[in-house]
């Protein structure tokens, strides 16, 4: 199998390839080390595919970068914290500098967190940076995944990378939860108490799982050390591995790009890695790092000394998990209890705890992971996609995404139902009852609304294409009517607004499909076709070339006659863009 490395006779040495004249001072210094490295690891050949690789430019592509950079900040600040943090639940008496807790019994974990906060110079800064970076890490991953979803970047060939991303999101959430459970203060201990109850509620194996996780009864003296191992070794290693795979696939597939003039499915337009992205992305890393540091300096987060050491007989009102656990917390809170626990013989089935935890997690991560495959099945589309969708051009997908966000948001609000009740002075029970309904109803409304907004935006595109852009110039014709003059848009914009492929809503297979399908296949095909109608029946068709040419001719006509026929053209009155052609002919018949 091992083929000999291909050798080109007389292949020139590295420095010989560079024309002598172009060697500036940088290269004169670098020549020695580069030659040294090249003779050992073939630097030039190694870098050749990447050195000038092109990446497209868009602000929304920075979201994933924020996630990556905040993960690096987490690794760096985390290393500093491990130097001082003691993952031990052994009880000691606190003798540190924080007066209010002196003399109290507490775990070494909590005492060392206090020491990091008050005695180690820079410790508080690094603790707060670590916590902020974690909140930012998950937030950026979620925002990044929404960008990917709404632009359809998960389509072939990137489905696997999307699934890897879902894995990263799930790991990130648990990594964060285990991290903030370590200091063993009253708040984190309350979180662990919740973990205990949740693990225990698992049908059939719950008690065993609880005893295996905690090393016996809650809280025991092992859980902090075990979570510490997961938090600083196992999960970061998994995240690192998946990040590496994620980025390698981005390089292999080349980055997607937004549609526009000169951008095609088989090219990528942008700037090269060196020097532009080295400076932009490298600079952006420092910006993220810097902003996280400033957050650590200026914004307090998780002041564990205020909460006090963990005491299983106490809890603070308004206890909240970090934001990314809010949706699970919310599901647990708004679940009605009575009736959802089965007592069968001498066993107890605690669905009131298990379901609201397991279902939303499964629905969120499972739903995300499986979505690209569902959509690909519906469309039957087997081609590769490198040009991104504008979210409005797939109203149903966008609607589904907004529905999922709304569902997540309702659960998330549930996680703070007590805070909402106290801050807005409303009944806690009313907030909870409302959310019990809203978690099912709001996503449906959001879907319909978002889909309609998308179609509205498609109509706005239609308007721009056929009538041009609003110029802000209001004209009054001799009969006293007002209208706004429209300016034609550039060909580049016209192309960007019309280049998307349109999917057809399919009619059901007639009769039994003339023996083309077996019974089973026919049922599946009918289902698929129904799904295409769900997806694409309401999507606005883009104007044809003939319509555009006619509109352009008309525009030209109007421009040359200045005030033309004096028809107020009613842009923006929102009626019947389906009758666009009709409106136009009114203009044409003065």
């Amino acid at each position, binding site marked *: 199998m091992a083929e000999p490395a291909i050798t080109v006779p007389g292949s020139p040495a590295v420095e010989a390839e560079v024309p002598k004249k172009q060697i500036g001072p940088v290269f004169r210094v670098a020549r020695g080390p580069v030659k040294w490295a090249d003779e050992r690891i073939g630097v030039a050949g190694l870098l050749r*595919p990447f050195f000038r*690789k092109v990446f497209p430019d868009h602000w929304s592509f920075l979201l994933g970068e924020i996630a990556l950079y905040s993960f690096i900040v987490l690794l760096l600040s985390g290393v500093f914290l491990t130097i001082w943090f003691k993952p031990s639940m052994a*009880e000691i008496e606190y003798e540190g500098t924080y007066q209010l807790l002196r003399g109290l019994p507490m775990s070494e974990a909590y005492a060392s967190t206090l020491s990091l906060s*008050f*005695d180690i110079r820079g410790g508080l800064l690094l603790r707060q940076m670590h916590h902020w970076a974690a909140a930012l890490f998950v937030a950026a991953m979620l925002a990044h995944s929404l960008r990917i979803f709404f632009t359809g970047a998960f389509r072939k060939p990137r489905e696997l990378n999307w699934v890897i991303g879902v894995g990263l999101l799930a790991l990130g959430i648990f990594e964060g939860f285990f991290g903030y459970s370590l200091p063993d203060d009253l708040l984190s201990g309350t979180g662990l*108490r*919740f973990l205990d*109850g*949740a693990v*225990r*509620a698992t049908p059939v194996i719950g*008690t*065993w799982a609880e*005893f*295996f*996780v*905690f*090393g*016996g009864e*809650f*809280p025991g003296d092992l859980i902090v050390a075990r979570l510490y191992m997961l938090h600083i070794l196992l999960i970061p290693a998994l995240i690192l591995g998946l990040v590496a795979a994620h980025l390698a696939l981005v390089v*292999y*597939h*080349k980055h997607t790009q937004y549609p526009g003039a*000169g951008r095609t499915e*088989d*090219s990528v*337009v*942008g700037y090269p890695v060196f020097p*532009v992205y080295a*400076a*932009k992305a490298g*600079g952006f890393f420092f910006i993220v790092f*810097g*902003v996280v540091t400033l957050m650590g*300096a200026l914004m307090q987060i998780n002041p564990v000394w205020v909460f006090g050491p963990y005491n*299983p*007989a106490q*809890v603070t009102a308004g*206890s909240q998990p970090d934001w990314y656990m809010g949706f699970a917390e919310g599901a647990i*809170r708004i679940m009605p*209890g009575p*009736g959802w*626990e089965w*007592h069968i013989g*001498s*066993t*107890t089935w*605690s669905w*009131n*705890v298990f379901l*609201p935890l397991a279902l939303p997690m499964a629905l969120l991560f499972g739903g995300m992971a499986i979505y690209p495959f569902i959509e690909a099945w519906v469309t039957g589309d087997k081609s*590769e996609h490198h040009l991104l969708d504008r979210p409005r051009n797939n109203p149903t997908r966008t609607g589904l995404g907004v529905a999922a966000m709304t569902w997540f948001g309702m659960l998330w609000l549930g996680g703070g139902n*007590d805070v909402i009740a106290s801050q807005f002075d409303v009944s806690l029970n009313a907030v909870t009852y409302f959310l019990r309904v809203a978690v099912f109803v709001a996503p449906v409304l959001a879907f319909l609304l978002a889909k309609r907004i998308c179609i509205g935006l498609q109509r706005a595109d239609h308007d721009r294409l056929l009538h041009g852009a609003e110029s802000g110039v209001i004209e009054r014709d001799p009969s006293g009517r007002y209208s706004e003059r429209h300016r034609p848009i550039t*060909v580049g914009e016209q*192309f960007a607004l*019309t280049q998307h492929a349109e999917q057809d809503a399919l009619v059901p297979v007639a009769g039994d499909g003339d023996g083309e399908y077996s019974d089973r296949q026919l049922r599946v095909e009918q289902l698929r076709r129904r799904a295409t109608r769900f997806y694409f029946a309401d999507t606005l068709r883009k104007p*044809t070339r003939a*319509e*555009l040419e006619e509109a352009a001719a008309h525009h030209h006509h109007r421009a040359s006659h200045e005030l033309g026929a004096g028809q107020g053209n009613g842009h923006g009155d929102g009626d019947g863009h389906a009758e666009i052609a009709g409106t136009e002919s009114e203009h044409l018949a003065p």
Partner: protein
Amino acid sequence: MSEDTGASPIHASSDHHGHELTEADEARYPVPDPGHPEHLPRLADVDPKAADRATRQVAFFFGMVPLLAIGFAVVYFAVPGDWFFDFGPLRANARNLGLGLTFGFSLLFIGIGAVQWARMLMSDEEMVDLRHGATSKPEDQKWMLTELDKVVDESKLTRRKVIGRSLLGALAFVFVPMLVGLADLGPWPTKKKRAATIEKTLWAEGVRLVNDVTFEPIKPEDVEIGQLINGEPANLKDLEGTEFITQKAKAAIVVVRMDPNTIKIPASRSDWHVGGILCYSKICTHVGCPISLWEQQTHHLLCPCHQSTFDLGNSGVVVFGPAARSLPQLPITIDGEGYLVARSDFTVPVGPSFFERDSRHDFEEGDN
């Protein structure tokens, strides 16, 4: 990965290809691709003064970094940990603020300088890379299949099948030690183990109810109507460390006094209270938070974690929230010296549900 390395400048012929394609396919592309827009120079490309200004900006940002870094060192060594800045209602530790601002701005300035450099001064001519489909080339696919065939053949796997099968078995079973090795992660919750741990608390006949902070025993006359006392068993004080905290997590109680005429006391529990003083587990039956928000007038006790609400005037039944089971009540009486004591342990396991829990004896609305 043998890829084309050359990103071509924008005017490469690939463009025209795209253009022709979109010109021809009228239905798919109502507007033909006009090709890459003309590159417009930036101000700094045409005005040397603007370029100089941008250069100065970049150099300023980079130049500030050493100063800030030295500032960080100064703050680190010179500012004591107990200096504070007061900004009206806000208060900040001077050292944390100083370290964070100097370090944060030094990082931020490197970033801003680099981005400004790229945006204003580096070449901004867009380039084009051609894409190759994700699929391997047909000759690579063919090569792979032939080689796979050879590999299978050379390994003799097809002719000596028992090797493959036994290897699969071996690989499956090599996980057994790894799994078995985890069997001691915790004690096994057998029936006996459960009875000694999660189904049992420190409470027993004659154990005094004590205040959970002072460990003072409680006399009925100390408890006013409407009052709630957080309590623990007196024998908790003898324990230390992990044992202390583990027992405390189960044995915590609330002692409340209500007017016996305004509450429902079932016949089966008529001798569980002392003159309207009732004692309940403080550990929520939902996921185990200590419940502590007491509504004196309604006799409701609300858990601040997930808002399960229990009616202490009605044997602890759930009136709201995600809990499904009544709060266990501790039968109490008074001892010879007039202090409140338990009559036994809780009659059912306290805390959140678990699979093997026999929940047939918990109080339900309507029981007597």
